[in-house]
């Protein structure tokens, strides 16, 4: 049974950009392969992640309360919030698209914020968890985040096409800026979180994996 030690425990630092390993003693110097600064873990990872998360939560409120766009038909304006736009899609009998927009604009940002908060708590309070599963959760959060930009792109296309003066016009609302900020901020939050911190605090990670997944580690 081969144990898998963490590189840092062996005095080695993985370069964040090129993946080269360097001895810990080289630290004030940049990576010899790619020239980026060597850091064992993302510096101030928890502090930065929490700062982004709090701003994300704060902006999530105006993003959902204010209208994200206003549809004007024959001079009559009709502001839509994100949820209102989804309801309009359901009324128009476009249920699959409504579900898609609901997932991308409401579910994903919220689950991202909550999931990253859980990960943050897990590292901060040194919970003993199935680190493999929690790393998978982090990976999924980091992957799905970009798809929330869907609503922003859709609005930019709508307002450029539907610009027919008094007949029909779509204007972007104040929530668009807030929502775009939520997406960017949660992307930054996911980027500043270092999943290796989950593993650093596990005292029995090798044994846990061996119990649950005997074949993975056997060489």
């Amino acid at each position, binding site marked *: 049974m081969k144990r898998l030690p963490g590189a840092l425990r062996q005095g*080695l630092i993985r370069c964040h950009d090129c993946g080269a390993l360097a001895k810990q003693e080289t630290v004030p110097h940049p990576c010899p392969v790619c020239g980026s600064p060597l850091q064992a873990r993302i510096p101030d990872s928890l502090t930065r992640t929490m700062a982004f998360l709090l701003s994300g939560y704060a902006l999530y409120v105006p993003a959902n309360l204010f209208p994200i766009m206003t549809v004007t038909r024959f001079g009559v304006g009709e502001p839509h919030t994100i949820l209102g736009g989804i309801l309009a899609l359901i009324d128009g009998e476009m249920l699959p698209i409504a579900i898609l927009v609901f997932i991308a604009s409401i579910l994903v940002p919220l689950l991202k914020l909550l999931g990253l908060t859980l990960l943050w708590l897990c590292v901060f309070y040194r919970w003993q968890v199935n*680190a493999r599963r929690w790393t*998978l959760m982090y*990976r999924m959060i980091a992957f799905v985040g970009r798809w929330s*930009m869907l609503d922003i792109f859709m609005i930019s296309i709508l307002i*450029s096409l539907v610009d027919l003066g008094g007949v029909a016009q779509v204007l972007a609302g104040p929530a668009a*800026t807030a929502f775009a900020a939520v997406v960017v901020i949660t992307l930054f939050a996911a980027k500043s979180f270092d999943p290796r911190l989950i593993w650093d605090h596990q005292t029995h990670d090798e044994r846990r994996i061996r119990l649950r997944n005997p074949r993975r580690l056997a060489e």
Partner: protein
Amino acid sequence: MRARPKLQLEACPECDALLRPAALVDGDKAHCPRCGFLLQRAQKNSIERSLALSVAGLLLFVPANCLPLVGIKFLGNAKDGILLSGVAALYGEGMWAVATLVFLSSMLFPLVNILLSLAISLHLYLNRPNRYLRHWMRWLQHLDEWAMLEVYTLGIIVACVKLSSMADLHFGLGLYAFVGLLLVTVALAASLDRTLFWQRIDALRRKPA
């Protein structure tokens, strides 16, 4: 005479497990045994493919940006939309922050990614050292996740479905170029084997001039 290979190790970027790199055959995937992270996907002719795909991407970038993507006809009014017109409309409404974000993620970063991939793979293909290679590679890795052509494509689809009930839509030539560009950039991201590229960049740097 066979040179004895130096003991090389690698570490998983997501769980820091210290690993001995597997010798991959083309098409193989290496996963971290501890956390399951996809460490490397070995590609056949990674450098040549990346070079070819970045040239194709550059060629498609021009029509995808200059030709109309979607046109709309509504009560006798007709309007065509190109990629930039969405950005311009946002900017015109005073939403410069959102306009900048859309411009960066749908136009500038995809272009910069293609140019960087082209520059790097061309240098590796010709075996030409360049002291900026490692900086380009770093930029490419950092900018990669901010290019969101695939999300933009989904945005076009959703916008078209929304409009289809109230107006006549027609798809322009630019849309075909745009979808082509999307496919090329996805293939480019898959064919560019970062581990291999870093090894080659490091080897070129050590090569005596």
